[in-house]
C-alpha cells in the first residue's frame, strides 16, 4: 500500500491540477484498471445546501461537487463556515442544538441523510482528521485499530497486521514499533497527528475530511503530512480546510473559497489563486483580508 502511494506520487506533479489529472485518465490501460470507472465521477455533491443553527444561518445554498481522487482546499476567513461545511459532510453537526438544513449532500449519489444511509457506515466511509491530534487513551496499536474494532472489519492477528500496515503507510512504524503498547500521549505532536491519520485510514475510508490538520504542528511535520496527503490520492478524495494559503496552493487540485457562508468561487486551484473571477476572492488570496 505504501509503495503504491509513493509510485503515484512520483508519477504525478506535486502541484496537481485537474488538467494533469484528466491527462492521466486518458491512458487506456489505467482507465481499464481503474476500479472507479463505473462509478460517478464525483464522490460528494452538495446541492444548494443551506444550514443554520437556530436563527443563525451558517451556510447559504452551497452547490459544489468533489471529484474522485482529488484534493480540494476549503479556504476563507475565520467564521465563514468552512469547518461547519466540512463537518456536515460526515454529519458531525447533526447533534448540535438548533441544527437545520435544506438542500442535500450526496455520497456516491445517495443522500447522506437518506433513510437507507447508516450513520456509522457513513462515518467509516467519510473519515476525519482534526485540528489537533486527538489520540484515544489506549495503546498506540489500539489507537490505530480502534475504528476497525468498532466496525468489526478485522479481529485477532489481523489487527496487528493492519496496525503495522497503516503505521508504515504514514511512516510512523519505525518510530513506534518497539512501543506499540505504550501510551500515545508521549509521542510528539506531529507523530500523534500521524497516528490519528493512520487510525482514520485503517477503516478504509473513501473520503477524508481534514480540518486544519497541520495548524498545531511544526513546519517539518507539516511538510511531511502534506506530502503524505498527496500520496493518498487518487485512492482517496480529500477535502482540507486550511488557513494556510500556501498549503492550499501546494497540495490541492481544486480550491473553494467561502465567505460569510456563501460559496464565492471554486475551481482549479491555480485559477482561483491566479485568475480569480471575484473581487472578494482576489482580496483574500492576496492576503489583503484575513
Amino acid at each position, binding site marked *: 500500500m505504501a509503495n503504491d502511494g509513493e509510485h503515484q506520487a512520483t508519477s504525478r506533479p506535486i502541484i496537481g491540477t485537474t488538467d494533469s489529472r484528466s491527462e492521466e485518465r486518458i491512458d487506456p490501460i489505467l482507465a481499464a484498471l481503474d476500479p472507479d470507472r463505473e462509478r460517478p465521477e464525483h464522490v460528494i455533491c452538495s446541492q444548494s445546501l443551506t444550514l443554520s443553527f437556530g436563527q443563525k444561518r451558517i451556510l447559504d445554498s452551497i452547490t459544489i461537487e468533489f471529484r474522485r481522487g482529488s484534493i480540494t482546499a476549503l479556504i476563507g476567513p475565520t467564521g465563514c463556515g468552512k469547518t461547519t461545511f466540512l463537518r456536515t459532510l*460526515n454529519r*458531525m453537526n447533526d447533534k448540535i442544538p438548533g441544527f437545520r438544513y435544506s438542500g442535500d449532500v450526496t455520497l456516491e449519489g445517495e443522500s447522506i441523510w437518506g433513510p437507507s444511509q447508516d*450513520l*456509522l*457506515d*457513513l*462515518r*467509516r466511509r467519510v*473519515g*476525519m482528521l*482534526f*485540528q*489537533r491530534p*486527538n*489520540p*484515544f*487513551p*489506549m*495503546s498506540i496499536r489500539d489507537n490505530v485499530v*480502534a*475504528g476497525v474494532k*468498532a*466496525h468489526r472489519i478485522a479481529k485477532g492477528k489481523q489487527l496487528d497486521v493492519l496496525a503495522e500496515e497503516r503505521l508504515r503507510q504514514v511512516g510512523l512504524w519505525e518510530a513506534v514499533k518497539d512501543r506499540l503498547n*505504550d*501510551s500515545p*500521549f508521549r509521542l510528539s505532536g506531529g507523530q500523534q497527528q500521524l497516528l*490519528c491519520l493512520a*487510525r*482514520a485510514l485503517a*477503516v478504509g475510508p473513501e473520503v477524508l475530511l481534514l480540518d486544519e490538520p497541520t495548524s498545531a504542528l511544526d513546519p517539518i511535520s507539516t511538510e511531511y503530512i502534506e506530502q503524505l496527503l498527496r500520496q493518498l490520492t487518487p485512492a482517496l478524495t480529500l477535502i482540507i480546510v486550511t488557513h494556510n494559503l500556501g498549503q492550499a496552493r501546494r497540495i490541492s487540485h481544486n480550491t473553494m473559497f467561502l465567505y460569510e457562508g456563501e460559496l464565492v468561487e471554486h475551481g482549479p486551484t491555480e485559477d482561483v489563486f491566479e485568475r480569480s473571477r471575484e473581487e472578494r476572492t482576489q482580496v483574500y488570496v492576496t492576503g489583503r483580508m484575513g
Partner: protein
Amino acid sequence: MATIDRAATGKPVAARHEPASLATALRRCAAFLRRNEPHLWTWGGRTAALVPLVALTLTVLVLTLKAWPAIKVNGAHFLVGSDWKPGNTYGATVHTDGVAHPLGSSYGAWPLIAGTLQSSVIAIVIAVPVSVGTAFALTERIPRWLAEILRSAIEILAGVPSVLIGLWGALTLGPLLANDVYPVIADHMPDIPVFSYFRGPTYHGEGLLTSGIVLALMIVPIIASTTRNLFAQVPPLPKEGGEALGMTDWEVGRRITIPWVRSGIIGATMLGLGRALGETIAVAMVSGSLLNTIAPNIYGTMGTIAAALVTQLDSAFTDGTGFEVRTLAELAVVLVGVLLVVNMLGRLIIRRTGHLDAPAGQGY
C-alpha cells in the same frame, strides 16, 4: 483642644500617634511577611501536609495502645475465629498473660470482617455501574437545565444523614425487598455454584443484600458526583474523534470517555468503598447486627465491624475488667487495617492501569 492641653501638660504626644504606630507596626509586619513569603509557603505547606498523616498515626497509635492487652490475649484467633463471648462478667476474673478478663471470654471477629467485606463489595458492585451511568447521562445525555437539577438532587442525597437512610431501609426497603423481590430472585436461581448463593431462604429483609443495597444508595452520590465532574473535564476532541470514526455513543463512552478518567473513577470508587466499609448506623439498622454469623446466603442476617462497634459499646462497659472495651478497640484497629489494605489495592490498580492515562490538563 484636648490634644493641645495634653501637649501643654508635657505628656508624651505619642499617645496621639498610637493608632498611627499600630498601623506602622502592621505595615512592617506585612512587609516582613511579604519578604518571607516563600518560607511561609514552604513551612505552611509542610505543616498542612503533615496534619492528616499525624492525625492518622495518632488515631491508630492510641487505638492500638488501648487494644494492646486484647491483642495479646485474643491472638490470631481474633482474625479467624467465629465467636463473640464476653464470658461471665459477674463471675470470676481470670488472668491470661497478666491481662484480666472475665472467665470464658473468647473473641473471634472473622464473621464481622467477612460481613464488612461482603456488604461493601455488594455495595460497590451495585453502585459503580449506577454511578458511572448516572454521571454519563448527566454529562452527555440529559439537557443541561435538567442535569443541573438532578445534580443538586444527587448532592443533597449525599448529605442525607445515614440514620435516616437506615431507618428507611429497616422500615420500608427491607420488608419490601423481602416480600416482593428476594423471593422472585431466589425462585429463579439454579442450584449451581455461585448462583446457589442467591437461593432461599430469603428471611425478613434484614441482612447482607439489604445492607449492600442501602450502602450502595449511600455511596452512589459520592461516586456519581465525582465521576460527573471527571467526565465534564474530558475534552471534546477525542470524543469527536471517536464519533467521526463511526463509533456509537456507547463505544465512545466505553473506549474513550471512561478510560480518559480511569484513575479518577478508581479513586472515586475507593472513596465510596471507604465509606461503605466504615458505614455504621445504617448497616446496624438493616443487617441484623449479628456478631458471630456469616450469612449463609446473600439474604442472610449478618454483622459488620462498624455496626458491632456501635451496638456492643454499651454492653462492653458492663465488663468490669475492661476487656471487652479493649477488644472493641482491637476491632477498630482491624477496621483501620482493612481500610488501609483496600486503599493500597486501589493505588496498585491505578498504578497498573495508569500508564495509558491521558495526561492531566492536556490542553484541547
